[in-house]
């Protein structure tokens, strides 16, 4: 099953995209598959919570999985961090996330 996700890119443009729940994908990979941020500026570490290039702000009040220690630690060293910051690579696409709204953090 596909869910809808609203992603605001770094230029402020919002895209409504379909994201599959059965492909073991994460939010960072969805952004890359739709090329909403230039290659090389997102998912630099490949999804190991080690670079923060996929940082995004969660705008809707969906219940998200808790941050792992790795994600907490990486966000503590990232820039432009807000209370609603998450690493896209640590958010798995599941049916519960239908309608999720996120905004990509600036490149740093």
């Amino acid at each position, binding site marked *: 099953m596909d869910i809808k996700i609203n992603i605001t890119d770094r230029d402020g443009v919002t895209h409504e995209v379909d994201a599959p729940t059965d492909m073991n994908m994460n939010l960072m990979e969805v952004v890359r598959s739709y090329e909403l941020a230039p*290659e*090389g500026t997102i998912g630099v*570490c490949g999804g*190991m919570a080690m*670079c923060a290039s996929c940082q995004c702000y969660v705008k809707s009040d969906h219940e998200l999985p808790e941050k792992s*220690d790795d994600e*907490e*630690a990486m966000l503590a*060293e990232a*820039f432009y961090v807000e209370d609603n910051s998450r690493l896209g690579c640590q958010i798995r696409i599941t049916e519960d996330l239908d309608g999720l709204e996120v905004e990509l953090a600036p490149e740093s």
Partner: protein
Amino acid sequence: MIKTDILIIGAGPTGLFAVFEAGLLQLKCHLIDALPQAGGQCSEIYPKKPIYDIPGFPEVLAGELVDNLMEQIRPFQPGFTLGERAETIEKLDDGTFIVTTNKGTKHSAPIVAIAGGLGSFEPRKPLLENLSKYEDNGIAYIIKDPEIYRNKRVVIAGGGDSALDWSIFLTDVASEVTLVHRRNEFRGALDSVEKVQHLKNEGKINLITPAEIVGLKGDEKLEAVTIRKSTDPQQDFDLNVDNFIPLFGLSPKLGPIADWGLEIEKNAIKVDNTLDYQTNIPGVYAIGDVNTYPGKLKLILCGFHEATLMCQSAYQRIFPDKKYVMKYTTVGGVTGFDGSKKEAPKAVVKAID
């Protein structure tokens, strides 16, 4: 001037394996890398992460893979220019190239193979006003010579291994060491965390957490940093320091290579994937994560394949008149430039009476 046959830019797994394939063809290699050690991302970002898709290795740590590659290429005596970034390229009339680093080291070769991954790793800089004014004027992102901190008041920011390790090291050098981090928790080797705890208890490290450096002060040079420990900016306070070392990790940037006249698409270099991974500049190849072509996958194993085909093509360019057929290592063995020779043991031929 460093002279070689194939100048490889980037000492990650793809660049390292290219040395082996070149060596089988008796071609010498020299590698340039902006990082102080070989291995690229594998060493810098995830040395302790297991990789599961290296053919023949059900599981191998990224750091181990680099160690193995270094061992595999040792007989071919590659040269290294580490801690320097390839800055400019110049094509001479005889068709060879001169590549110069940011420190002015010159390299000459008939073939240039760019194996630069996502680019050279640059320090991630905190978002502070007047930051550039104090760069090399009290602020440095990389510690080159610890002695310049002798008897100085130093503040370090960051929560990873480098922040911990340098804080520990500088307690014996600097007159005052302060470590500022946004959280109480640090992500580093356990013994480093414990050592900092110990030094903090002894009063040798002034630990300020959770806190953040939000301002810089000083007329000519850095004289103080402003520290925010609570959410209330009214309670910000200044700490007098001589040096500030922000250690927030590194992020890769394509950098000067982008200005070499190469065809760039999606932050990667376009190559001919139907033949030899050559770029639009004859004699310049791009292999591994740094290149792009239809169907490209950024996998180490793909980089190995690309490196192999690149070396065959490089050989043909250097020796256009030589006839050559690829020889299996099971047949030809491996003859190093260091005089070493590895080969399959001869089968025993003995009659049975």
